[in-house]
């Protein structure tokens, strides 16, 4: 299944629909024979008001934040089923941008895929988003998948 020569891709998810879209976007153009491993990484932030919010999978209403993260990571990992590369699921704990960068370093990643949900003022004004911070300090190339503008309804 996995080829030793391929790169290791880290796909980050924060439980948002946009992060699921980013994972799917990778599938649309990347060559699975050049990728040995895909690690889907979710980060739980213990000090934040919602340590992890999962909008992409179903789950019981009383699951823990960590369980929510595991569910979201599993949902994103399922995108790569049968694609070729070995898929890993990882949960980390701490500040999201920091942990994604650390995961990329620890795994020797050749590419990090993140979603940037922001489109407009908030990204510019509010100290930058996770995606911006990952771009700034990742040890490898970063694919930032930005939302496509929804076509206006009539």
């Amino acid at each position: 299944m996995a080829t030793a020569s391929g790169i290791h891709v880290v796909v980050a998810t924060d439980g948002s629909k946009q992060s699921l879209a980013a994972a799917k976007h990778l599938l649309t153009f990347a060559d699975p024979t050049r990728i040995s491993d895909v690690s889907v990484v979710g980060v739980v932030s213990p000090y934040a008001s919602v340590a992890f919010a999962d909008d992409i999978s179903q789950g019981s209403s009383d699951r823990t934040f960590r369980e929510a993260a595991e569910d979201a990571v599993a949902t994103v990992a399922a995108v790569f089923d049968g694609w070729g590369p070995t898929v890993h699921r990882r949960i980390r704990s701490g500040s999201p941008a920091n942990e994604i960068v650390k995961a990329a370093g620890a795994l020797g990643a050749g590419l990090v895929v993140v979603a940037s949900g922001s489109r407009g003022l908030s990204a510019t004004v509010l100290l930058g988003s996770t995606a911006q911070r990952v771009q700034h300090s990742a040890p490898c190339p970063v694919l930032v998948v930005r939302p496509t503008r929804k076509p206006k309804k009539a």
Partner: protein
Amino acid sequence: MSDPKPSSAAVADDGGLKRSITGRLLFFYVLGDVLGSGIYVLIGSVAGEVGGAFWAAFAVGVTVAAFTGLAYAELATKYPQAAGASLYVNKAFGNRGLTFLTTVLYLSATFAAAGSLAAGFAQYFGQIWDLPPALLVMVLFVGLLAFVNYIGITESVVVNMAMTIVEVVGLGIVLVVGVIYVSRGDADFSVLLNFSSGDNIVFAIIAGVALAFFAMTGFENAANVAEETIDPSRNFPRALVGGMAAAGVIYVLVSMAAALVVPVDTLANSDAALLEVIRAGILPVPVAAMVLVFAVIAMIAISNTTLVQVVTQSRILYGMARQDVVPAAFAKVHPVRRSPVTAIAFSAVVVVLLLVVGDLLNRIGLEIDIVERLAAVTVVLLLVVYAGVIIACFKLRNQDAREDTFRAPTALLAVGLLGNVVLLYYVISTDPGSLLWCAGLVAVGLLLFVAEVTFGKRDRPPGVERGTPVEGRKH
């Protein structure tokens, strides 16, 4: 493809389940949260109630709180999840009404605490710049913290630790002043045994404890990070009780220093009592500069604790919405920021309303000290929650224990429970007015529940019971 999970490697490979909160981080989290909550704000009021011996009130308050902390430590090691008191009560009694009540009382306590702290912040702010009206400062402060919570920079453990160190430094300055004063031979130690109401020492102490107790609150928020604590059975009890004990020792020493350096009347009548210690001019530094530095430190300390309260409020509302007991809007997170926008905004509005009501009451001539008033309300609400947690701890004694589960000494829990009940009785009997505020806050929770029952059907398919997870509801 039909079952996605087995096809990808287990989450646990090469340490994929890493948790991030070490014992030391948790210790600083508890210490910072506790230290900011009361001593900067309430020390003058406690001194006024007790007299020169007000350190004793802090000592007793710390002890009762620490015994309650033991119950939290035991339960958090058994159930290392972020929900805290409501989870424990739910595990113990399985009664949805009781669980709901516990959650609402806890939520109300965080509202009142944030209000009291915001008012305390405004008092220190007023010491360096008294032009803007206090109410405006409070409202801006609450708004700013809500904004910080919204953009999600609360996640920084480094910032949390730095703020805690600043808080300790601030109290360290007070201690240094005390030590210099004593070493000069100026100190009159008899003041430390001085009670304002000479005849009834116990009564005087209890009066102080009721307020001093506010200074210990905040430790219960440690449950927020229980889920992410490394080796919780070992680290959680140590860090929680250790943090509380450290705070307790600092409080007692700071109270003694303050009592020795500044006349108790001055402390009692000051808006920012610890500043009076600095104003005594004992340090070989210009007083004006020192006052400015200290006021800033005090404001940082108060902000740190208020921020934890604000985070907790929105987290509780988020959890309640996921359980379908408040409208689903509270469970909505911002697509980019991943923070519960409605919950954050709503909490800020409630806290601001508390402050506005306090201000209005003052304007119509009912002289109330909003810091003290909301602190008392917080204490009443939390005492009920704490007592419930200790009872839950007893009830769950022989359940769910693993080999490494921390077990709190039964006798200490019993003393803690008794302490909570006695204090509760005292606060309510001397200050029945605080019950009105409590009722008002609890009513907010009930209103949200009624709103969910009345309008919440739309997000649930017909025939599905409240609280049952709905398949694919998020899609």
